[in-house]
């Protein structure tokens, strides 16, 4: 297997872009990545395109990748469509990485794109419910409920177990809203206070509106090539993919003592990259509901059980901390166009590692970074997809 570099990234801002179809959202992200890498459309040997809800929400049930890429001038190559719920983009990245690592392709493109604003939020929520196994979604179960009380995370139970308060739940949202306020690509750019987050209306007890990621349109892309070829195209900081791990959820019965899948997927990523949690300089993680960031701190090995809020109180995971988490603003502030999120995370890490993150630049430029992305929900108490990528410069 060859070492693989990310030589170009690009993103469309996240937010509400009613007039833009999928291909119009993807176009600036794709060309942003091509121009950043210094490659032409004809240089791309293979492309993976992640999208989750486009079939139901736009009516473009098939060949979304080919439609989106033809609009951007990329044709006549293998194009693989990837649907893996909120981890579609990280799955697309993994496909592109394997193509280059295996020597099948020299230059590969990974794209994630999502169009969620279609003028009927109930329809969008319905489509989102459809990335849970139908046995759950047909009973009216929603993602917000899954974070609140589903056994895989059960934030409500954490309040009992750890003594976490509503204010603790609000802390990641407040931290990330500050980061997002510095990010011109972010959907929500207003810094929030603990009071505002706690007092916003309850969506699913104990989660309030400002603790939840919102409906979003957006896109992101990355150009990958072999490390040997990277010099030919880009003089920017060399960034390599040290590991890219994907795991499906595991059927868990009550009393199952095995570590959860966010833990096992991140452990595999650390192991393959030859690093540990303490070596990571910056992290983008899947805070679909803000307080889930506190649980992910534990699962990624950043702190012990229940210590999540301390990492924010003690300025460890803030932008000025030793391990900033979600410098982009994360899913709640930057935005969560679901099929684009994994690559939006990668874009942010690349910009941070190159020192190109503008006002939200982490002062000590990160050298080892991690993106954690997950999605879907299965029977048997687990998410459907867990992805974890470690980058090195």
């Amino acid at each position, binding site marked *: 297997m060859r070492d693989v570099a990310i030589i170009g990234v690009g993103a469309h801002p996240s937010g509400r872009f009613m007039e833009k179809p999928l291909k119009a959202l993807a176009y600036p992200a794709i060309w942003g990545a091509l121009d950043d890498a210094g490659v032409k459309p004809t240089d791309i040997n293979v492309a993976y395109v992640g999208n989750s809800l486009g079939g139901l929400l736009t009516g473009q049930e098939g060949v979304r990748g080919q439609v989106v890429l033809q609009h951007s001038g990329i044709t006549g190559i293998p194009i693989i469509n990837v649907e893996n719920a909120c981890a579609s983009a990280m799955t697309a990245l993994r496909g592109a990485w394997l193509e280059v690592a295996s020597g099948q392709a020299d230059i590969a493109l990974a794209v994630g794109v999502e169009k969620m604003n279609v003028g009927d939020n109930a329809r969008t929520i*319905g489509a989102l*419910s459809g990335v849970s196994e139908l046995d759950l979604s047909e009973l*009216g*179960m929603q993602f917000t409920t899954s974070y609140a*009380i589903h056994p895989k995370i059960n934030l409500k139970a954490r309040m009992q177990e750890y003594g976490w308060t509503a204010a603790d739940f609000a802390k990641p949202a407040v931290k990330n809203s500050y980061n997002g306020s510095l990010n011109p690509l972010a959907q929500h750019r207003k810094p929030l206070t603990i009071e505002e987050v706690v007092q916003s209306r309850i969506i699913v*007890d104990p989660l309030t509106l400002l603790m939840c990621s919102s409906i979003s349109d957006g896109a992101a892309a990355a150009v990958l090539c072999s490390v040997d070829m990277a010099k030919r195209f880009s003089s920017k900081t060399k960034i390599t993919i040290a590991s890219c791990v994907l795991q499906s959820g595991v059927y868990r*019965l009550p009393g199952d003592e095995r570590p959860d899948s966010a833990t096992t997927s991140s452990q595999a990523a650390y192991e393959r990259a030859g690093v540990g949690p303490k070596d990571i300089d910056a992290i983008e993680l899947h805070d679909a509901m803000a307080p889930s960031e506190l649980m992910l701190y534990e699962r990624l090995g950043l702190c012990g059980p229940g210590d999540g809020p301390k990492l924010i109180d003690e300025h460890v995971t803030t932008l000025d901390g030793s391990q900033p988490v979600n410098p982009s603003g994360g899913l709640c502030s930057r935005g969560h166009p679901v099929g684009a999120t994994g690559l939006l995370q990668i874009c942010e890490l690349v910009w941070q590692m190159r020192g190109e993150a503008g006002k939200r630049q982490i002062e000590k430029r990160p050298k080892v970074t991690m993106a954690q992305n997950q999605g879907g929900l299965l029977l048997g108490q687990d998410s459907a997809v867990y992805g974890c990528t470690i980058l090195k410069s």
Partner: protein
Amino acid sequence: MKILNPDNLRIPTEPGATPCLLGNRCWDCSTVVFPKMPVCPSCHHNGHMDEIEIGRTGKLYSHTISHFAPKGFTAPAFQIFVDLPEGPRIFSLVGRGLPVERGMLENGMAMKLVVEPLADTPEHREELTYKYVPAGARA
């Protein structure tokens, strides 16, 4: 009226018999799953699953009130997970009659299965499904 998912729910017609869920139990390792699946998730044996009746009662594992309904459902509504004595932990809605307020449910409380329309909406009024209510509630 039709049963939303007849493979999951048995509504007996004999007098005195009560409705129940239909799950699978593995011949080899006795793991019980709901809904049914042909391969045991614990020992991975294929085709060794027997259909069994489960879930007439349960214990409340977790609960919340959802204040936003997907299309075809109403809010506010309880959403819960129930531990069945046979093993599975399942998602469910709560049967009617219980005011949707904090303090009405307590984790660990005994629950029992009832059969009701999925939701009191034009989309789901004619679809029967299982729900759970506190065991002390109406018959």
